[in-house]
C-alpha cells in the first residue's frame, strides 16, 4: 500500500511539473516568451469583462516578470496597468518592483502611458498663478457649471 501511495505521488508530481513546464517553459521557446505565448486585445477584453467591464485595452506586452503579460487599459478616462498570467487564468493588480534597483516598474510604465506632451498646448492665454521659476506645472482645464 505504501508503495502504491508513493508511486501515486510521484506520478502526480511529474504531471504537475510537465503542466507548469508547458505553461511557463522558457527553454522550449528559445528564451523568447512571445515565440510560444500569444495574447490578443480581444482575449484580454474577454478576460477583463467580468472585473473591469468598461475597460478598453490599449496594449498587451510581456511584462518585466516572466510568465506574465503587462496590459495597459483605459477605464472611465483613466489609463492604468494590470497583469495577466500566461495561463490566462489570473489577473494581477499591483506594483512590480525591481529588487535590485528598487524601481517601481509599474509606476514607471504608468507614467509612460499617461505621458502627454503638453508642450503642444500653448499656454500663452492661460491664467497663471505661482512661482515663475517653479519646475513643476499644474495645468487645469475647467468649467464652473
Amino acid at each position, binding site marked *: 500500500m505504501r508503495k502504491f501511495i508513493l508511486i501515486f505521488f510521484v506520478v502526480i508530481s511529474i504531471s504537475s511539473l510537465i503542466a507548469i513546464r508547458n505553461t511557463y517553459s522558457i527553454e522550449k521557446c528559445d528564451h523568447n516568451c512571445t515565440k510560444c505565448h500569444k495574447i490578443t486585445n480581444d482575449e484580454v477584453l474577454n478576460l477583463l469583462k467580468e472585473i473591469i467591464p468598461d475597460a478598453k485595452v490599449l496594449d498587451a506586452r510581456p511584462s518585466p516578470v516572466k510568465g506574465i503579460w503587462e496590459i495597459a487599459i483605459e477605464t472611465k478616462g483613466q489609463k492604468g496597468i494590470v497583469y495577466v498570467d500566461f495561463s490566462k487564468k489570473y489577473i494581477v493588480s499591483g506594483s512590480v518592483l525591481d529588487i535590485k534597483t528598487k524601481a517601481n516598474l509599474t509606476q514607471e510604465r504608468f507614467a509612460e502611458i499617461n505621458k502627454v506632451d503638453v508642450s503642444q498646448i500653448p499656454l500663452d492665454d*492661460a491664467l*497663471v498663478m505661482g512661482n515663475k521659476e517653479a519646475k513643476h506645472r499644474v495645468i487645469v482645464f475647467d468649467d464652473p457649471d
Partner: protein
Amino acid sequence: MPQIEKEYIDTGKIRYYFLDFPLPFHNQAFKAAEAAECAGEQGKFWEMHNKIFENQRALSPEDLSKDAEAVGVDMPKFKACLDSGKFSDEIKKDMSKGQNAGATGTPTTFLGWVQPDGKTVKAVKKIVGAQPYSDFKEAVESLLKTSETRGK
C-alpha cells in the same frame, strides 16, 4: 483650490495654469467663463473665478453681475465686456487646446515638470474629474518625488 494654493502655489513649489473648458452641455458655463475673463480685464480674474466656483449653482446673468459687484469691478465696464462677447474666441481657443490635449471632462488636470530646455513641459499624470484633495496631494507629491529622483 484654497488648499492647493496654500500648500503648493504660495510656497513656490508649482506654477498653476488655468484654461477655460466650458462643456457644451453646461448651459451657463460659457457665459460664466466670459464673466471671469471680463473681471480679469480689470485685474480681478481670480477673485471672480473663486466667487463663481463658490456659487456654481448660481450662474444666471443676474448672479454673475452680483458676483462681479461683490469682487469690486467697475460694473458698466464689466457689463459692456460681457455683452460684447469679446473673450468668446479666446475661450473657444482654450477649449480646442483642451480637446487636443485629451481633456474630455472637467476638471481635467495635467501634472508635469519643466524639461531641461526650459520651454516645454512633460506631463506625467492626468487627473480627470473632481477628486478629493488627498488624491491631488498624492499625485503632486509623487510628481515632486519622481522629478527629484531624476534630478530635475
